């Protein structure tokens, strides 16, 4: 079918109704009954391969939860022309199964999801195709394309749960997190206020948010990126929908939490028979959990089928490249192989000789004979709230929200990886480091500048030196400006180049982050999540600052683009000696790019050291736990277990 689809797309690039859609194959997808899969999934790692589910499930073929066929969607751009976003996409989801849509950034994954829940952007136009929601208990089968708004109300939220891609802007900012999560409950159940609250706390707890009762009373802007994402997940599953659409639900989550979420989704599949449309760029996750895979590229289906087959015997060249690019597999394999010297960064890291904690930073002998590291942080404290011990959290000690007494150094020309669970204070450090937050106490020195004490001129020099790539690119880009002008802005502010030269620089910056320079004219809302993230990176890099703080900067990118970006920043580092602080939950990526790594937990620094050492011989139990939760697709699993000695 992939061949056929490609032909269809090729033959009819204008996007009118595909004549092929009616002639497509009629063989049913081998489906699996979640209940037949036993309790294996989500409880331990001895998972059965999706292929096996497919075989067992084939026997009790249930009607699908969702059938998408021949879906084609165009976007009208501001200049009036139509840009095709989807071409003849088809997919089926059986009850209790998970279909993962993977593909490069901008390939149309989010568009597919939005189309299923009927919430396409204003300028989108469905040119062809149908979306059918299967029966569910008493509820009838529905042609979603023909629903009235009134009918939609009974479908959305109740029968289809939706987890949006961008957590930064997807929560109502003036409502508490609890109230945000409770919305579906209010809409679709008759629960009392107390019952709702209990359920909300339970849900927040289930998605791994600590101190759920307190978190429910906080406002979205008081949560970390990962927490917001989880709050959205909690909201989507609140009423046990028949179909769950999860658009990159774990992109901002560290591996431990990611595992918890994935387990939760498995549980839902198993217990409630929920069908899941799982959108991700992370092949490892897809491989580990999905029953079926759908590889999309430039709006059409490249290849689809059971996950195990696709991973083992990819047919299309694109799928093969995706697999090859996946850093998690590469690096972890390498990690397992030679014990900590894999990855291009390691040689440099060795040279730096482990500028570890803040305490011993003074003594570190810098690379290239430099007397001082570029970045020096000590005693950094920003306490939003201190949470006292409570009954449910007896062993947690006194917990804080924010960061407390954090110190580290970063040598010039090296990369510090900042890892840690969601909400551990990574972004707070990033913001403090880049001068967006004046911490309550502590010292930050970058080069000759003291970040906590900047006069007007100093601030300007500081901005020239330090750049932050925000965790939520959607909210960090001004909606009224084109992305091109957002990228140009630092150039203009620092008076770099003439007007014409700046145009060229912007185009080059876009090209470097693998974006078509023609996208420069678009507004942020007309771009996909990954594209926005790359725009944010381009903006930070365009003035080639000395220090760049990447806050989850590649989390929404598919492996291919991610690899390209990582290569880009690596190249810049080599060329210009840039220094990076790389915040990521993706240990594989950190392993690849970082020289030294600092591990955070609950606002405190847990462990720090050269990346090779920390990853191969973690000292702290927390670090071990973190490393142990990395998803293990396919062959790598057994290997990892041994390598990490868990």
């Amino acid at each position, binding site marked *: 079918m992939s061949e056929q689809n490609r032909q269809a797309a090729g033959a009819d690039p204008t996007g009118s109704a595909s004549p092929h859609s009616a002639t497509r194959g009629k063989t049913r997808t081998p489906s699996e009954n979640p209940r037949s899969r036993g309790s294996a999934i989500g409880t331990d790692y001895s998972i059965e391969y999706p292929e096996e589910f497919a075989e067992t499930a084939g026997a009790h073929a249930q009607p699908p939860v969702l059938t998408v066929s021949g879906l084609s969607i165009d976007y009208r751009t501001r200049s009036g022309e139509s840009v095709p976003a989807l071409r003849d996409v088809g997919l089926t989801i059986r009850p209790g199964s998970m279909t993962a849509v993977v593909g490069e950034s901008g390939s149309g994954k989010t568009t597919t999801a939005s189309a299923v829940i009927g919430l396409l952007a204003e300028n989108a136009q469905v040119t062809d195709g149908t979306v059918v929601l299967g029966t569910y208990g008493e509820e009838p089968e529905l042609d979603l394309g023909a629903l009235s708004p009134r009918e*939609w109300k009974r479908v959305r939220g109740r029968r289809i749960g939706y987890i*949006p891609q961008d957590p930064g802007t997807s929560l109502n900012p003036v409502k508490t997190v609890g109230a945000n999560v409770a919305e579906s409950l209010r*809409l679709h159940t008759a629960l009392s206020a107390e019952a709702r609250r209990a359920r909300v706390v339970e849900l927040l707890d289930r998605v791994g948010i600590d101190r759920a009762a307190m978190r429910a009373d906080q406002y979205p802007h008081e949560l970390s990126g990962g927490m917001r994402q989880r709050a959205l997940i909690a909201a989507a599953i609140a009423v046990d929908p028949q179909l769950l659409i999860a658009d990159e639900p774990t992109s901002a989550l560290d591996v431990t939490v990611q595992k918890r979420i994935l387990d939760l989704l498995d549980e839902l599949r198993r217990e409630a028979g929920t069908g899941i449309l799982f959108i991700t760029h992370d092949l490892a996750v897809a491989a580990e959990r999905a029953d079926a895979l759908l590889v999309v590229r430039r709006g059409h289906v490249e290849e689809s089928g059971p996950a195990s087959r696709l991973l083992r015997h990819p047919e299309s060249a694109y799928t093969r490249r995706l697999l090859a690019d996946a850093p998690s597999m590469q690096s972890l394999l390498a990690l397992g192989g030679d014990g900590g010297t894999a990855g291009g960064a390691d040689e440099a890291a060795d040279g730096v000789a482990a500028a570890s904690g803040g305490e011993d930073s003074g003594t570190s002998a810098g690379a290239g004979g430099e007397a001082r590291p570029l970045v020096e942080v000590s005693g950094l404290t920003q306490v939003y709230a201190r949470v006292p011990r409570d009954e449910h959290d007896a062993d947690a000690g006194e917990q804080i929200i924010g960061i407390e007494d954090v110190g580290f150094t970063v040598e010039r020309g090296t990369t510090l990886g900042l890892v840690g669970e969601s909400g551990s204070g990574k972004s707070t450090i990033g913001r403090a480091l880049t001068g967006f937050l004046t911490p309550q106490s502590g010292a930050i020195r970058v080069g000759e500048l003291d970040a906590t004490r900047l006069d007007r001129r100093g601030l300007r020099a500081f901005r020239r030196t330090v750049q932050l790539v925000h965790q939520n690119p959607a909210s960090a880009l001004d909606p009224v400006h084109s992305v091109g002008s957002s990228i140009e802005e630092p150039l203009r502010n620092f008076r770099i180049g003439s007007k014409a030269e700046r145009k060229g620089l912007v185009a080059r910056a876009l090209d470097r982050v693998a974006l078509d320079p023609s996208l420069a004219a678009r507004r942020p809302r007309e771009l996909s999540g990954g594209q926005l993230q790359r725009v944010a990176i381009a903006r930070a890099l365009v003035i080639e600052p000395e220090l760049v703080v990447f806050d989850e900067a590649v989390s929404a990118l598919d492996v291919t683009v991610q690899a390209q970006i990582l290569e880009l920043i690596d190249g810049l580092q080599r060329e210009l000696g840039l220094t990076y602080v790389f915040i990521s939950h993706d240990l594989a990526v950190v392993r690849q790019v970082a020289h030294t790594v600092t591990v955070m937990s609950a606002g405190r620094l847990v462990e720090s050291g050269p990346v090779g050492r920390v990853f191969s011989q973690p000292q702290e139990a927390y670090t071990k736990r973190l490393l142990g939760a990395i998803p293990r697709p396919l062959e790598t699993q057994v290997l990892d277990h041994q390598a990490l000695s868990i």
Partner: protein
Amino acid sequence: MAVYLAGRLGQALLVLFLAYTAASMLLMILPGDGVLARYANPALGLSGEQVEAIRQSYGADAPWYVQYWQSLSGFLTGDLGYSVNSGAAVSTLVASALPSTALLAVSGFAAAVVLAVAVAVLASYGKPRWLASAFDSAPSLFISVPVFWLGIVIIQVLSFQLGWVTMVSPGPLESLILPTLTLAIPLSAPLAQILIRAIAEVRAQPFVHVTRAKGAGEAWMLVHSVIRNAMLPALTIAGLLFGELVAGAVVTETVFGRAGIGALTAQAVANRDNPVLLAVVVIATVGFVLVNLLVDLLYPVVDPRLRHRGRVGAAARRRLGARAQASGTGPSRTGADRADQEEEIRA
């Protein structure tokens, strides 16, 4: 909070003083004075000398700073002085005018809010499109109707033609209906306009999308998601409407023959009746400062992002603590209190 309030209260007093002074200055700038305006009125037929003698007895010929100081010290001791135009005590005039205006202002404001919300909702959600579009234009229509004309038409039709309410010695409620209507229509225009824009902006936000994906209908979202977010600019406008109320009262009270601050202002301006005008300024300022203080205090209530960081945590935990006390779960009260104290020490 207490510190903030005290600060604002201090500022309020300053505003009061400045407004008073500014108004006094403006009145000095206006040529002629109330005494002259009154006693040189041809209806009295007094000669120039006679007028001058009376002016002297009023002290109207004293230098401005003397007059200013006298009136200021009078105000500080609670003596509002006497109307130059009628000789009546300003306190009497104000006391008899204030309740009626306050009543009209409250009812007019309430009606305006209701009207504005209705217009904004219909303009944002109305079906079919042309209806919505018609309501979208309603604010600009409302504001370009001359108030006096509106009042006259309303009176002509509802009272004189249809006889629903009487204009002559109406009951207290009856006397309020038509002026309220007249006041509310132009008053609602800016509010509705801002609401329409704010609603449109909020509806374009991603989180509204997400709420829609939860199965919320437009009406539900309007009530639970949109309004709160659209309220901030609307709140500002609502605070400003106080001024419009005073200005609107001038015309409305004139048209409807209601005694009130508005009518008093119009007369006082026309007669250069400085003591009355200054009293009006003081009343208006107090009203304004209070209303806008309220609005400023409401901003952070409406939009939690505007709360000070530390304070939010404290507030959230206090609520949590209270709830925990009630339900017996959650962090202990003392714990919450301790955290609060810590916070204050840090701040």
